[in-house]
């Protein structure tokens, strides 16, 4: 049995750190997928969010980074 996380300060800090890690992982993974030729709908489906949401969050950055994006 893993130890119980009894200190709320640790638990709350873990939430903040996990969010930050998830954001960093998402940025890197979406960029990697788009460089590998994935489409927006495929990336969106893999993340479980809408195509509009993933496009809004990442398109500008990837275009400026020079990633050639598939239109569909």
């Amino acid at each position, binding site marked *: 049995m893993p130890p119980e996380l009894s200190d709320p300060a*640790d638990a709350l800090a873990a939430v903040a*750190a996990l969010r*930050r*890690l998830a954001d960093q992982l998402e940025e890197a993974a979406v960029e990697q997928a788009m460089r590998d030729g994935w489409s927006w709908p495929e990336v969106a489906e893999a993340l479980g969010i809408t195509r509009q949401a993933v496009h809004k969050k990442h398109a500008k*950055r990837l275009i400026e980074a020079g990633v050639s994006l598939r239109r569909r």
Partner: protein
Amino acid sequence: MAAIDHYLNSVIEQARLAAFDDGSATLEAHHLLLGIAVAGENAELIAAGLGHDQIRAALQGEFEHSLQTVGVSAAAYRLPKPTRVGDPPTTLGASAKLAFDRAFSWARRKKDLRPVHLLLGILQAEIGTVPRALALAGFDRAALIARFSGDAA
């Protein structure tokens, strides 16, 4: 523009770069602390063992420690670093707003605000990334506050 405005501008500029590098959408208190370490009047900070590299190491230690408490290792995967383009964030996050609120409470009027007040505003947070990072890295936050508040009166 008053000297304090120039000072705050340069700290905020450096904090924006730190937030950008982090992939953060907002400027937080720990970014301001890094900003002070780069751009600020930081001789006292360095004398207290809080140079830029030490602060960065303490923040990374807090991040890794917090992930470890739920069994996640930040070093367990390797992905290419995402490309960062565009403009660094300008929005102050909740922890940075609180740091400024506390800084202004040290000064009776805005024109009395001095660099050390912002540092104290950041160090006075009892909860959050900065106090956890300092504690985990072995810094005595109360002693730091006592040390710097002598300069703030």
